[in-house]
């Protein structure tokens, strides 16, 4: 996105603090606070966040729970105000935040649709014209005259989404809506978002589904505890986020141990030319550069590696011995190149571990556990953990 494309959303040094109180919303606390002039405890949900969304661009917002994503969206939607900083936007905003949230259970589907439309600022005239399309899209033709309290949660969401997209805003805010609904409905949503994109409208999306958000976003912003950690290409940010989650989840998952007679001095993800990189390219060819350091001569050493997924399961592991790459000995410093074709693995976050041991595994010289987080970006769809070669006749 070039810098002279018009800006749709401009988030400028936004800081949001919430007041913390044990007994919020009581007159007693308010009066006591006033008398005591007590310092209010605050919680900083967003800390000096700035970014721009250009016209026609789709920006994904990722981060762990409590990172401030939803607060950010609320501020952009105008339902919350930043403590410091400001947000400006051009064009109408429609938000898919908790779909169907504004529905009143006692009103019928039809009444709720009209209400929702008018809340979004659509005239009743326009809403009547769009009504049939909304009902068609939601697939709730038979239930539209029923009070929505008789709806299932899925029906609720479908109707909410149908209204929100038919409103046809300039900017669409989407908060984790793809988590609900069946596969068919999700497909419909994604199609609608693609259509939206192709019309040159801007979107801001929150999702924990890395695969979806990566495929639909032009850029991704990564929030961590209210701080914008980075904004950039989807692959790069997904890798950064993946690394942070795995490290965060397993405490210090990154460990190393061994006798130390020989060491793997460094292990780096590189490209095919040997240049260090941070994100795996789309072809999922993994290249690693290992540097070893053996002060003493080590006979028949074996270098091994393993790939584990987010759940900690070993997806694949191998070593120089298995692959028939025999090293008679090592002495001093040296380098090894490892190439792994990970085309068959499905998209997601993985961890690379490396080890250096002797041939019959009795001595473990050095092991780097969960040393490099990688994100595999493949877009090939299939079920399961890896793509096996398949032939139909």
């Amino acid at each position: 996105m070039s810098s002279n494309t018009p800006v749709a959303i401009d988030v400028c040094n936004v800081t949001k603090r919430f007041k913390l109180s044990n007994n919020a919303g009581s007159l007693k606390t308010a009066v006591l606070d006033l008398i005591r002039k007590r310092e209010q405890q605050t919680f900083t949900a967003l800390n000096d966040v700035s970014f721009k969304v250009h016209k026609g661009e789709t920006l994904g917002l990722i981060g762990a729970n409590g990172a401030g994503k939803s607060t950010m969206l609320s501020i952009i939607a105008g339902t919350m105000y930043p403590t410091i900083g400001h947000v400006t936007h051009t064009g109408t905003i429609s938000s898919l935040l908790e779909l169907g949230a504004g529905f009143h259970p006692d009103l019928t589907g039809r009444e709720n649709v009209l209400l929702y439309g008018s809340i979004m600022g659509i005239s009743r005239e326009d809403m009547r014209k769009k009504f049939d399309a909304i009902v068609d899209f939601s697939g709730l033709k038979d239930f539209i005259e029923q009070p929505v309290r008789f709806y299932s949660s899925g029906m609720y969401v479908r109707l909410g989404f149908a209204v929100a997209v038919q409103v046809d805003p300039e900017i669409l805010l989407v908060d984790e809506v793809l988590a609900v609904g069946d596969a068919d409905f999700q497909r419909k949503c994604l199609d609608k978002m693609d259509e939206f994109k192709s019309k040159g409208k801007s979107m801001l999306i929150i999702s924990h589904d890395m695969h979806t958000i990566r495929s639909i976003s032009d850029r991704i912003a990564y929030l961590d505890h209210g701080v914008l950690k980075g904004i950039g290409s989807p692959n790069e940010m997904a890798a950064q986020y993946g690394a942070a989650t795995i490290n965060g989840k397993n405490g210090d998952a990154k460990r190393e141990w061994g006798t130390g007679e020989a060491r793997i001095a460094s292990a780096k993800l590189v490209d095919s030319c040997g240049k260090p990189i941070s994100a795996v390219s789309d072809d999922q060819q993994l290249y690693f550069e290992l540097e070893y350091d053996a002060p003493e001569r080590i006979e028949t050493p074996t270098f091994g590696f393993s790939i584990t997924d987010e759940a900690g399961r070993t997806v694949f592991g191998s070593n120089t011995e298995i692959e028939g790459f025999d090293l008679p000995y090592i002495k001093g410093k040296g380098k090894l190149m490892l190439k792994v074709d990970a085309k068959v693995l499905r998209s997601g976050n993985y961890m690379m571990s490396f080890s250096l041991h002797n041939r019959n595994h009795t001595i473990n010289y050095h092991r780097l556990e969960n040393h490099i987080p990688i994100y595999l970006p493949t877009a090939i769809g299939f079920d399961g953990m890896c793509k096996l070669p398949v032939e139909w006749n």
Partner: protein
Amino acid sequence: MNLVKQLFQRRELLLILVQRNLKIRYKNSALGFLWSLLTPALMILMYACFAKILKFSDGADYLPFLVAGIVIWQFTAGCMNDSLQAIVGNTNLVKKVAFPRIILPLSTAFANGVNFLLTLIVLIVYLMLAGVFSYTNIYWLIPAVIMQLMLCIGICCICSVSNVFFRDTEHIIGIGSLAWFFLSPVFYRIPMQTSAVTSVLGLSEASQFQGIVFLNPMTGILGLYRAALMENQLPVPVGVSLWWLFASAGVCLALFIAGLIAIHKGDKSFGDVL
């Protein structure tokens, strides 16, 4: 000015929310909207029965006087009551969509207003049947309606905002509205109220501050309505200057403006607190 423009742009939303408030009130009831007419009619019947049995009377027109007072009072009381939920009860909307928040208390006030209009029709029919209806002074209705509408909008705004920040509001309103009811000339007449207040305050009978009861806006409003609809009723008691009506009107205006300020001030924090 900006607010008026915004409201004009979102007038359909206001209309739909008023409709919604009215619809929900009678949703799932067999008689539906008929209740708006049936409730006041039954209420009048009930008061008539008890007034007869208990023989509490203050002149021949006491029952119509009392019924008119109660109908008018209920508009204000209804607004106070419903406004508690105007914002809190629409948390989902407030948290998800940006729109002028004043629409929420405003729709509560208007929905109650529509209801009041229907009740007013029942009241007029009743006054006709009771033979005390008079339209010679019907023009008093104009200041009466304007004042009560301003008062109700003001109250709705203040109570709805206050209930967002202090849930105690609910309890305060419950007891406060009862106190206000007794302080207003609903079941007693203004002269009685005037003499009671002057004696409490130690004012002389001839004091020019006799009209001080009109600082309660409901005193002026009730006086005006009764003067507009009923025979032989004056908006202010004999010996009190008509100018005191401006005291009531002034308080209505002050509460109206206070309501607008409350909404404006509260707006920025609704999203955080709800």
